């Protein structure tokens, strides 16, 4: 049984196709572990393995998949970590999930998350916090914390997450796994319960880089249901690079210098990974993203502004919670939303509504959109000289539950190194670079739009050389 759990998803799929492994045995092994989940990683689990139905011959061969709660899955609870959607079972399935089912994936369960994907610790879930399998007194990161913890702990072979400002990469870093945010538009957003539409992007959380490439390959594609989705140029290749010869890595002074507040243990692991990259033949040089220090401010205007509009749909009329007020329909709206949303969601709706309100729009939202232009220009200039920009994924390792909840601003600083790429819409991957005091550290590589195959290749070469051992978290 434990042998099955130690297989990567790609290796398991290969064995199934070769007739050496029964997909039901694999599914049952994970289902049993997920049922005994002591991390609160899942909010819903399937009853039993689905019938084989010819999946065996398909690329994903029936390998089970954990799906972040905010992906609509037909007739299965899809609550986005919120009380306002408690018990909601959508009448349709998100395109990315349908694509993966068509490729042969099976649904294992839905994973816990920060409410509406707003958070960096998974402590904002209405269904309780998720625990980090490396140290259960600590957070798994967020907002895809359940997906990251489930994969790290071997409760699922791989998982789907979403990233708006770092919500795939940061929990992947804190849990010692691989997380990839694709280029904006690579994956359809149809059926993802929206947070910030110009930033939200689905992506894989996996045990290694090869699994991330395999899952992403079957996620991407233009979708008539999402006008911002694009036809991905080319295929996602299986990564195979043996070295980094000729690869130029840029280390942005503005993110990795003193201003970023990178912990010493994280910095040491980052420097060691850079040394490994050099040994593999890469060149490593300091570079500049002059507007990157302002990315966090721009992000915390744009994302709340978009969320305040997107979350207007939760009004107690068509689905979800209704709380009748004392008077008319207006008091029903206020009472429903006041009772259904948690504190962080309320904060962001308020921040966004304020930033969009009459007299403040230009100073806040308009300015943030201009900063966004500058940030994209900074990356474009950097990519003329460098293949990839590299940073620590998170300035910190996993922190203790409750240690940052009292100060929302301190929590937001967690996203310092991940939001610039989100604002620029470019792909970025986090891979484990090692441990600091027994806790995983994430190494982030970002590339130009649609460079996923090259990015995965570079991450693969680095991953093979680093040789991170993730087995401890699965015990």
């Amino acid at each position, binding site marked *: 049984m434990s042998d099955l759990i130690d297989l990567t998803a790609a290796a398991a799929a290969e064995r199934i196709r070769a007739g050496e492994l029964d997909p039901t045995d694999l599914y049952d092994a994970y289902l049993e572990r997920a049922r005994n989940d002591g991390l609160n990683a899942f909010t819903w689990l399937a009853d039993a393995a689905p019938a084989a139905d010819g999946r065996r011959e398909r690329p994903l061969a029936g390998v089970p998949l954990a799906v972040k709660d905010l992906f609509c899955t037909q007739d299965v609870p899809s609550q986005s970590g919120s009380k306002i959607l408690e018990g909601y079972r959508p009448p349709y399935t998100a395109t990315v999930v349908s694509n993966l089912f068509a490729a042969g994936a099976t649904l294992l369960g839905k994973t816990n998350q920060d409410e509406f994907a707003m958070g960096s610790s998974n402590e904002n879930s209405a269904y309780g916090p998720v625990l980090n399998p490396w140290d259960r007194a600590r957070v798994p990161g967020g907002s895809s914390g359940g997906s990251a913890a489930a994969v790290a702990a071997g409760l699922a072979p791989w998982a789907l997450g979403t990233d708006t400002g770092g919500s795939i990469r940061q929990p992947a870093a804190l849990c010692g796994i691989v997380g990839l945010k694709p280029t904006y538009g690579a994956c359809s957003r149809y059926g993802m319960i929206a947070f910030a539409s110009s930033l939200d992007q689905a992506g894989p959380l996996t045990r290694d880089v090869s699994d991330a490439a395999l899952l992403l390959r079957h996620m991407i594609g233009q979708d008539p249901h999402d006008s911002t989705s694009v036809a991905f140029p080319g295929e996602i290749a299986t990564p195979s690079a043996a070295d980094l010869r000729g690869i130029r890595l840029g280390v942005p002074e503005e993110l990795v210098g003193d201003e970023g507040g990178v912990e010493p243990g994280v910095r040491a692991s980052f420097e060691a990974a850079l040394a490994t990259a050099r040994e593999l033949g890469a060149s490593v040089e300091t570079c500049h993203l002059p507007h990157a220090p302002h990315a966090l401010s721009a992000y915390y205007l744009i994302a709340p502004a978009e969320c305040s509009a997107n979350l207007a749909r939760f009004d107690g009329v*068509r689905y979800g919670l209704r709380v009748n007020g004392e*008077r008319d329909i207006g008091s029903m709206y206020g009472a429903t939303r006041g009772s259904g949303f948690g504190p962080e969601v309320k*904060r962001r709706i*308020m921040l966004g509504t304020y930033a969009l*309100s009459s007299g403040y729009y230009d100073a806040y939202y308009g300015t943030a959109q201009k*900063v966004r232009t500058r940030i994209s220009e900074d990356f474009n200039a950097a990519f003329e000289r460098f293949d990839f920009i590299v940073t620590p994924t998170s300035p910190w390792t996993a922190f203790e539950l409750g240690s940052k909840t009292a100060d929302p601003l301190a929590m937001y600083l967690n996203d310092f190194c991940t939001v610039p790429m989100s604002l620029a819409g470019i792909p970025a991957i986090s891979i484990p670079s090692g441990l600091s005091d027994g806790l995983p550290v994430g190494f982030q590589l970002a590339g130009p739009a649609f460079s996923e195959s090259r990015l995965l290749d570079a991450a693969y070469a680095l991953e093979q050389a680093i040789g991170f051992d993730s087995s401890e978290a699965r015990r």
Partner: protein
Amino acid sequence: MLDRDQVLHVARLARLELTEDELARMASELSKVLDHIEKIGELDLTGVPPTSHVIDIAAPLRADEPTTSLPAEVALAQAPEPVAGGFGVPSPGAAE
């Protein structure tokens, strides 16, 4: 920076009923976040175009052909108050 009345005004715009405790906490928390965010006002952004969509694509068009949509009974299946094929709501009350 933000006072209770301003917070109350924004909460009304957002259709969000907040308790007295929440109003007070929101005023101090939002002020702190806004203080940090306002630093972007110091940048010279004269002549910089805003970015609302990060990938440069034209709005795709499809043929204008009718397709089926969600059946009414499915759309209503999870409504808190389905009424005669529609969504029931409390009285709209007096015009504001």
